[in-house]
């Protein structure tokens, strides 16, 4: 299909290496990147900043009913991860056994396939997190 090709491509800095934004006016950090600082708006000055690749689980869930494209990974864990700089993001958890997944568990970013587009389209790669 490759239907989401431009979307996959456009977000590679975020998805591949956790590039976010920092507002030089107020110092706030955002992930994913934003075009304007919601706090400073016109006064803000947004630059790229790399997020830390380590953090901890803020909340998690084990998914048993998946949207198309994720069925073969069931059951899989998703989490809100709080990075070391306090930024939170949503991510799937990779290679993480059930007994190690809990709120507060340390995690680090890994690079994985996210979706395959039916084996014909572009493979969307990106971040997942793994319990250490």
């Amino acid at each position, binding site marked *: 299909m490759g239907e989401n090709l431009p979307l996959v491509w456009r977000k590679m800095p975020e998805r591949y290496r956790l590039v976010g934004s920092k507002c030089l006016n107020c110092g706030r950090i955002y992930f994913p990147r934003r075009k304007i600082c919601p706090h400073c708006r016109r006064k803000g000055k947004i630059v790229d900043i790399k997020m830390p690749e380590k953090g901890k689980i*803020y*909340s998690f*869930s084990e998914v048993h*009913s998946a*949207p*198309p494209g994720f*069925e073969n990974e069931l059951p899989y864990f998703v989490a*809100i991860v709080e990075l070391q700089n306090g930024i939170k993001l*949503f991510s799937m958890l990779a290679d993480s056994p059930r007994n190690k997944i809990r*709120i507060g568990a340390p995690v680090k970013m890994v690079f994985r396939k996210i979706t395959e587009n039916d084996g014909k389209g572009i493979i969307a790669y990106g971040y997942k997190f793994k319990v250490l």
Partner: protein
Amino acid sequence: MRDVAIVGAGMTKFGELWDKSLRELVVEAGAKAIEDANVEGRDIEAIFGGCMASGALTGQEHVGALLADHLGLNPIPSTRVESACASGGLALRTAYTAVASGMYDIVAVGGVEKMTEVSTADVTRALGGAGDQEWELFNGATFPSLYALMARRYMFEYGATEEQLAAVAVKNHHNAMSNPYAQYHREITIKDVMNSGYIASPLKLLDCSPITDGSAAVILTSMDKAKEYTSKPIKIRASAQASDSLALSDRKSLTSINAARVAAQSAFKQAGLSPKDIGMAEVHDCFSIAEILAIEDIGFFKRGEGARATAEGRTAIDGEIAVNTSGGLKACGHPVGATGIKQAIEAVWQLRGEASGRQVKDLEYALTHNVGGSGASVVVHIFERGY
């Protein structure tokens, strides 16, 4: 701004309506509301219709035009309103502002969703669009999993249990028993919920609202015109709306929906009322945790107390505050775009004293709370009798 009233209400039965298409649903609900209001079709000046995902779920967009056409109301203006699961509530609010401003005297407001035309996986994907497509759905999120993340955090912060969450579903199934429009007429137990299998842990199948077809519609007029149509107009005492981040991870808290707090506070301020004045509330229980957060965010209970309060029966029809007398999204069903209108209709029937078998006694004020997505948009209305 002038006062606005609901003068007519009608809805289809909610459920898996295999023999009815999108347009047949809206025609049935619309005709019932027009009939109930005793208005002439030619008197209606505009239509507002809430619908979330007709494109993904049926292939049909352009629902505004469809409404005007199939209700036989061409050529009046007809507008589709979309705010994910709050589409119905926002359609009502949009219509309210149109009448309150004096632009129109009589408008029809509807909500519809036809959800059983596609596979469950496709519904899961379509509803996932209520979250953040680029950063949640893309990364494997399902809509239940977003609420599951809230539930897990709520249980962690407040020590709530899965059994307490299950009490929401048990109560709402009980309430639905006396609602002829409800999808389910089946009592369930805590054990049933606990044994129903995880959809996204800690949420189980019976913590989740179902896939539902349905439509609901109301007719709004200015308060001073209302008496021309009905002896029992229901006044919209307050209409409020608020927004928050699209992505759940950007919220300050996972255990409170800030847009709901802001919208509720705004509604109470407009109405000059407080939570304790409300006798019944239809809240957005797309998942059991959502009702717990709702009753805390509206202010019926303190943060962290909603789960226990529900388990103790304090939100039952004869409790301190009757919550989801219709059966809620859980048991009455959740045809996404129609839900916000159905909530208003339940408030209307309760205030008119027509909620047979589930009637809340001595009711003065009713509140509806309709949430879009995981809480990025919330619409709150307060109703009272206009007679």
